[in-house]
Structure formats: C-alpha cells, structure tokens
C-alpha cells in the first residue's frame, strides 16, 4: 500500500508542475497580459510602460521561474486586478465552491444510487423504466437552461427561494440541484449496470443459495462490487462539477472559484489563474488518490499490480 501511495504522490507532483506550465503558456498565448491590464483605451506607450513596470517584459521562462519560486516559499502571487494576495482571494472563495460541489454531489448520490439499485432489482419493469426516464430526462437539458428554469419558477413566479448570493443555506438549493442533476443519470445507470452484472454472477447465486437474506446479499455483496466503477465516476464527477460550477456560479452570482476562474481567464489575470489551476490540480489529485484507495480497499484484486 505504501509503495502504491508514494507512486501516486510522485505522479501528483509531476501533474501539478505540468499543469501549471501548460496554464502559463495558454494564458500568454491567448493574449497579451500587459494589454489586458492596461485596458481598452490604452495607447501603445501606456502598454509598454505597464509591461515594463509589472515585469511582463521578462522572458516567459523567467516569469514562470519567478512564480514557481514564489509558490515553493508559500507565496501564490498577487493579483493586480483585485489588488490583493492571490491566496487571500482563493481561500476566501474556495469553501463556497466546495460547499456547492458537495451539496450537488450529495443531491446526485442520494437520488441516483437508490434509483440504480431499485432499477437493478426489478429490471425491465415499470420501476426500471421510471428510474431510467428520470435519469434520461435529467441529463438531456443544458445546465444553464435548467438553472434559468429553476430561477423562473422558484425565484420569480413562486418566490420560494432567493436567487443570488450565498447568505443562507436556501441560496444553495437551486444551484445544487442545477449542478448535481447532471451527474445523477450517469451514476444511476452505472450503478444499475454494475448491479445487474453482479446480481447475475456466480458468487451472488452462491450467496443466495447459502440462504443469506436478500438485503444482506444486495448491500454487503452486490453493491460493494458494483460500486467500484461508480466510485471512480463519482470522483471524476466531483472534479467535473468544480469545472462545471463556472456556469452555475455565473448564473446564480455565487462568488466561488468557478466564477473567479472565468473572470480571471477573461481578464488575463495570470497570477490568479496559475494559483486556481494549482489548487484545483491538488484537489483532483487528492480525489483520484482517495478513489483509488477506496477501490483498492473494496476490491483486493486491484491492489495487486
């Protein structure tokens, strides 16, 4: 297990560095940072002055090196747009996005795993069809349309829920549903597919033949094995949600990392983007690591090799 973990850690660091280099290049390639800072009506002289004063005239490798050096000493940099330390802004907003993602994932799992198990227990019956319908319907709408529909009904027409901001838990309801429902069908169908396969396999038949109670069969034996691809998927989906939160955060005016990332990309705020990507990379690495560990724990066959 230890070697496994160390190998993963090595990959993690390599990923973080690679991603930060790619991001750095992408931001520079997508426009001139000095021009972005100087703004729309700046003249050539203004921009050159900004370039000089703010250090954008150094070679890219030097700029990257300076940034990397800062990171290794704990300084994530300074955003000239927001005029604060990058770390201050990111760690102020990260909990918001984490909360949103967690609520969305929770909504998705609570809805989809039972649906998937139910559908697998009664395959090809009305229940199965119903579960599948819920899954398919939920997946076929673009997220921003769904979010706007929610706002229209629950925010404007019925005035049940607040629309923007994050003052209370009620503010998180619509965004979580809008963000989480998309994940629901995938998890549900994978659970169902996995359960169906497992339920018809030999060792389940053996367990049933042994006289074990159906519930015990279902959860201790079947679900444990069926859940393996689901765990991977859930980890990937959480990551996807952190990325997909851009649309949701934009629509609901939630000040999280997603919205910050979009604004920073548009502004060409180099320092902020680098830091956001780094922080997100760490999260993904942690997530996939945990998912791998969980899978290895659940299915010993994976541990070997």
């Amino acid at each position: 297990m230890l070697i496994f973990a160390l190998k993963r850690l090595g990959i993690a660091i390599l990923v973080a560095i690679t991603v930060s280099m790619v991001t750095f290049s992408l931001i520079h390639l997508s426009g001139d940072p000095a021009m972005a800072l100087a703004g729309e009506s700046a003249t050539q002289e203004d921009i050159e002055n900004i370039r000089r004063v703010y250090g954008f005239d150094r070679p890219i490798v030097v700029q990257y090196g300076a940034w990397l050096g800062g990171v290794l000493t704990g300084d994530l940099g300074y955003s000239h747009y927001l005029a604060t330390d990058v770390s201050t802004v990111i760690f102020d907003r990260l909990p918001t996005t984490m909360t949103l993602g967690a609520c969305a994932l929770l909504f998705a799992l609570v809805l989809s795993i039972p649906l998937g198990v139910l559908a697998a227990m009664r395959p090809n019956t009305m229940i199965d069809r119903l579960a599948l319908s819920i899954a398919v319907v939920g997946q076929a709408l673009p997220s921003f349309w769904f979010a706007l529909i929610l706002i229209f009904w629950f925010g404007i027409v019925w005035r049940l829920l607040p629309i923007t901001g994050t003052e209370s838990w009620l503010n998180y309801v619509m965004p979580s549903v809008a963000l989480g429902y998309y994940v629901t069908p995938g998890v549900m169908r994978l659970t169902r597919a996995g359960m169906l396969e497992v339920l018809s396999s030999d060792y389940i038949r053996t367990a049933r033949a042994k006289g074990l109670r159906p519930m015990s069969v279902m959860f201790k034996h079947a679900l444990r094995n069926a859940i393996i691809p689901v765990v991977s998927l859930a980890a990937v989906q959480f990551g996807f949600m952190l990325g997909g939160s851009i649309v949701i955060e934009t629509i609901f005016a939630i000040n999280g990392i997603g919205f910050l990332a979009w604004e920073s990309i548009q502004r060409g705020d180099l320092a902020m983007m680098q830091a956001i990507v780094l922080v997100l990379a760490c999260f993904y690495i942690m997530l996939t690591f945990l998912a791998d560990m969980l899978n290895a724990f659940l299915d010993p066959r994976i541990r070997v090799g």
Partner: protein
Amino acid sequence: MIGRFLRGLPVAAVALAVTAGAAWAGKSNDTLVWVTDREATIADPYYNNTRELVVIGQTAWDMLLFRDLDTGEFKPLLATSYEWIDNLTLEFELRDDVVFHNGKKFGADDVVYTINYVSNKDNGVLTFKNVSWMKSAEKLGDYKVRINLHKPFPAALAYLSNALAIMPAGHYDSAPKLADGTRNYGAIPPVGTGPYEIVEVKKGEAIVMKRNENYFKGGPKGTPAIGNLVFRTIKEMNTQIAELLTGGIDWMWDVPKDQAEKMQGQAQVVNAPTMRISYIQFDVNGKSGQDFFTKKKVREAFAHAVNRAAIAKHLVGGASVVAHSACHPVQFGCTQDVPQWKYDPELAKAKLAEAGYPDGFEFDLYAYRQREYTEAVIGDLAKVGMRANLKYMQYRALRDLVWKNQTPVNHMTWGSNSIPDVSAITSHFFSGGRDDFAKDPAVIKALETADNSTDPAERKRNYKEALARISGELYWLPMFTYAKYYVFSNELDFTPTPDEIPRFYTAKWK
C-alpha cells in the same frame, strides 16, 4: 494560507444552517443597489481601468473641475477658478472648505502630491493616458497650484474634469511593496472628498458607499440625497433581470433592447446615448494577406451593403444614430458634414462586380463585443455576396491581432474614455500609430495641427479636413453611436447622462 481556508469553512457551514435573510435594497432601506456584469476589483480610479471605477471615481472623489454636459463649460469643483498662463501652464485657485472622508482638510499639497505621483511613469498607473500629458505640479500657496504640461494639450481641461481624482497627500506612500517591485495598492483604504465615502470593499463582490454628511455645499454636484449605495456584480443578464423584478436590486444598465422593452411598467426603462461609437476598420494596405479591401470599390460596396440605420433602430435602441464620421457627434471637432454612404444593396452588388467580384468572395471579419451587432452586419453582407467568417474573440487577443495587422476587417468600438474631444478618438486612430491602418500623410498632418493648436476655429477646420478624408476614402466605415438601456426601480428618480457616468449623487427616491 491553510488557516484562512479553515476559517472560511465553518462560515460556509454556518451559512447553511441560518435561514434566509431579507432583501436589502430599495427605498425602505435607503440603499440603492446598482449592478453591472463586471467585478469590483480595486477601489482606486488610477489602478483600475473599468467603467465601474470611472463611475465610482466621480462618486467618491472630486476633480478640480466639473464639466457641465448641457453647456459644455467647465465649472469649478475643487478649484474655484483656473487660468491658462501660457499653453504649457495652468494655474488653479482651490476651495478652502473641503474636507477628506478621513477628516483631513483639503489643500494645495494634496493636488500637488496626486499629480506628481500619478504622472510619474514608474508608479505604473493603469490609466496612464489620462495623466501622461502632465509634467509636474507645484504649490504656489495654501490654496493655489500650478500644473506644467509636456506639450500643448487642448483637451487638458476635459481630461482634468474626467479623470483626475484628488487623493490626500501621502496617500500611496503607505502601500506595501511587493516582491516584483510594484506595490499593493489594494491595501490602502480609499479616501476622497466626494459626495459618498467608500466604507467597505469586498474584493470582487461589492463596494459599499455611504453618504458623506460633510460634503461641501454649493458645488456643481449638489448635495447627495440617498443614504447608501452598494455596487454589486451579477454576471448573468437574466439573473440581473430576475433580481430587479423581485426587488433585490434597484438599478442596472446595458440591458439588451428586447428585454428592456419588455420590462416597461414593472420598472423604468430609459434608452440614453453614450459616447461610444461602433466602427468598421479596413486593412487598406493589404498587410493582412486578404487584400479585398485594398480596393476602394470593395469598401464602397461594403458601405452600401450594410443597413446601419436598421441595426441602430432595431438592435441598439432609439437613442442610437448612424455615424458618418470617425468621431462621436457630441465631441468637440466632430462634424457629420463629410462624404456619406447610402444603404443600397443593388449598388453594392454593382460595385462589387465592377471591382472584379461578381460572385462575391469570402473573408474574415473580427469582432469582440455585442456579437449580435456583428451578426447583423454579416447577414447584410451575405445578401450581396460578401461572405464573412466571424472571428469573435477576447478584446486583448483581438487588439494584439490588430496591431500585428492581421485583420482584413474588424468591427470594433471606442468609448474615448468619455473625453468630449476628437483628439481622444480620431487622433488615436489616424496619427500614424499602431491602430492606424491607413497611414495617410494628409490626415496625419491635419490631425497634428489640430491636436497642438489652442485656437478652436483652427482645430475644427483641421479636424473636419481629416474626417472628410477618412470617410471619403473609407478607411473606416463609422457605424452608429451606442445607446444604453438603463432599467431601474420605479421608486427611483434618476436621469442617465450621455457620458455613461451615472450620477448617483443626484439621484433620489420618489
């Protein structure tokens, strides 16, 4: 770093447990919540180049002079009078009854400090063009200052009244230095003399302002009526609309025409002109590789093909007008008495055929803003055979391409920073600089004369000559003036102004 993260987490958890709070906008709270789709970054007009900070700059700070939009004259604000000593020297007498938000009395030291600090290139002011014309400032007495210019600059007063917010002496000195040599200006609390004082800056979320009870009386900005102003950011237009309709916010702008008109009755809807104009720029020297537009007949065909009046009327708004010259009609020196091009698609097709393209051709059209306007242009062009591929991108990416001369045709806009003088637009684009595709010596000369003269008649004459040539040769096809839809609460008494700087300090509740 980690500590801050852990601190943030329980807050979010608590927020989840607490039930919803009430809306906090409107007359009942004496709080005007105004919203745009851009973030509130730093609350300093010199280190931020967004329109939002131009607005906040006029709300929380005062300039030396104030431009009266109706008469065009410059009224005293922090200065009681001004005098041109010669065309490189300006002197001001200052008011003696003004107090900064932090209680400090205003005087010549503050003006001198501000001007000397911001005009120094090494201080990296982002809106440098607004201040680079000044060389230095000197104190002549407790309430008298002299400003020295680099060269004659007729638009000096316009820039002074628009952009030169006065900071208290020593204001920036306490900004901590950063590792890369610049300074952290965000660490300094904003201080000004204006009708409102900034009490809280939530970076990227909101800027909260409170009425300045000690604002001096008898100035052109009047006395502020509304008690609190809050600036918030909501990116998604539908969400802004939803919040306005449910009372969560009181004021928004830049609303698309169709949506704005549907809100009549539930809110006040006003379409007001702005100082921004939309224009088409042609690569007349063929440097981009697609040389269709080096031929004047092709440019003429383009001009005849696009129904600018229809776009202005149906897509922009009632206050938008077709522009015929490369300037905004309200700017000093601008005239529409130049060659004009009629909408005539048949003529367009004929001229295309004359130019050697009877079946039309395909080309790239670059744009960055209000994609629907460019789409309409493309639609019109397609009808005469000019098939445009839309290259829609970020402003900074596009500007880069423009400067590298890689755009055969670009559809862009210019707001002139609301400076009411032709030098802020025409001279920028036609004086031989990087934005000048034409590099026409006659135009360059006329503009140079006009820019450096202090005789208004001579300026107007030369600007007209330049503009006539630009429109005649179709270096640009000026399109239309932008008009903005303002939508605000029925409880609010507010009047938009054509310089896109909403005067919240004269707004009041009904």
